[in-house]
C-alpha cells in the first residue's frame, strides 16, 4: 500500500503545472488526499485538498473534504468556511449537508459561552 501511495505521489509531482479549473488534476489531488487521510495522515490530506481547491475552485467535494480535515485539526472557523463554500457550490448534496450538520453540533458545544 505504501508503494501505491508513493507512486501516486510521484505521479502528482510529475504532473504539469497546475491550471485553474483543471478538474482531472484536482480530482487526483482529492483522491490522494482521501488515501492519506484513511491512513491518518491528515496534514498531508489537508495539503492535497487545499491544492485541489486551488486548481479547481468549483470542486464542491474538495471543499467538503477540506472542511473535514480542518475539523479534525480543530480549525473550526476554516472548517465552517469550507463547508459553506461546498454547500454554495452544491446546495443539494445530502452528504455535505449531513457533514455540516454534524460539524455544527460539535462547534456549538465548543463555542458555548461560559456561565451556562
Amino acid at each position, binding site marked *: 500500500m505504501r508503494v501505491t501511495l508513493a507512486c501516486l505521489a510521484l505521479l502528482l509531482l510529475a504532473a504539469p503545472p497546475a491550471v485553474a479549473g483543471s478538474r482531472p488534476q484536482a480530482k487526483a489531488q482529492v483522491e490522494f488526499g482521501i488515501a492519506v487521510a484513511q491512513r491518518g495522515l491528515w496534514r498531508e490530506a489537508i495539503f492535497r485538498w487545499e491544492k485541489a481547491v486551488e486548481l479547481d475552485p468549483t470542486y464542491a467535494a474538495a471543499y467538503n473534504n477540506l472542511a473535514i480535515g480542518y475539523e479534525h485539526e*480543530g480549525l473550526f472557523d476554516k472548517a465552517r468556511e469550507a463547508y459553506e463554500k461546498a454547500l454554495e457550490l452544491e446546495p443539494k448534496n445530502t452528504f455535505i449537508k449531513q457533514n455540516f450538520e454534524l460539524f455544527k453540533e460539535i462547534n456549538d458545544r465548543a463555542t458555548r459561552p461560559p456561565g451556562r
Partner: protein
Amino acid sequence: MTARPARLAASLAWLLAVGALAGCTNFFEIAIETPIRPKLDITPFQRVLVAGFVGGGSDDVDANMETVRVLRSQLRSNSGMRVIEADVLPLAEIVARQLKQGAPDDPPNDVAPQEGQLPERIRDEKDLDAYDQVFANVAYWKQLGEEFQNPLIVTGTVLFVPHSRSGFVQREEEVYDAFGRRAVRPVRTYRERKGFILRPKFIFIDGRTGTQVYSETFREEILYDAQQNTPALSSYFELMDRVVPGFLGALASQKIRGSRILLK
C-alpha cells in the same frame, strides 16, 4: 451523545446504505476525532484545589464530600494539573459563621441574607440561593488561594434530591398470534417512578485574585420503577458519571469521535 447528533448519525448511516446499494463509490466514510479546546484557560495554574461545595437534598448522600472525592479523582486521571489534597471545606457552615461574624471586608450587599435567614436544611434550589454570597467573597477565596499557593479553586453548589413522577409511559410488548408469529406493539401503561435529580453548579475561582473565572450548571435526573430499590449513593454516582465529562471539558481538552463522508 445527545438525541440530535444520534439522529444525524443514523441518517448518515442510512445515506451510506442507500449509496452502497446504488453501487456508488464516490464517497468514503471516515472516522474523525474533533479536538475541543478547554473552555477555561488554565495555563496560569499548575495546581487545582477542589475546595468544597454547599451541598443539600437527600440525607443519604453527603453531596459535598462525595462531589469533592469524585472530582479530585477525575482531575487526577484526566488533567495535567496537580490535585491538592486538603480537608474538604464545610462551606454551608462557613457561610453561617461569616454571617454571624459579619465579614468587614465584604462589600455592602442588600440582597445578602442575614444570620437566621439561612434555611435550616437545604432542600431545594431556593435554599441554595441564600449561600451564593460566599462565592462572591473575593477576600475569602484570595486568602484560601494564598494558603495553597494560588491554585485554581473549584467550588460551587450541589443539590441531590429525591424525585418521583407518575404518568403514562409507552413501552413495547411482545405478542404472539395464533400461528406463533411474534410481533411487537406499543402499549401505554400508567407507571409510578422514583429517582433523583442531581444539579451541580461548578464555580472556578482564580486563587491569585479570589475572583470567579467561570461557572457552569448541570442538571441530570434518573427514574426507576417505584418498586425498584436503588441506593441513593449508586444513583448519585450514575448521575455524576453523566456530569463529569462536561466538568472536565472546562479544564482539559477533549476529543469527540464521529464520522464524516469524504467525497471524490
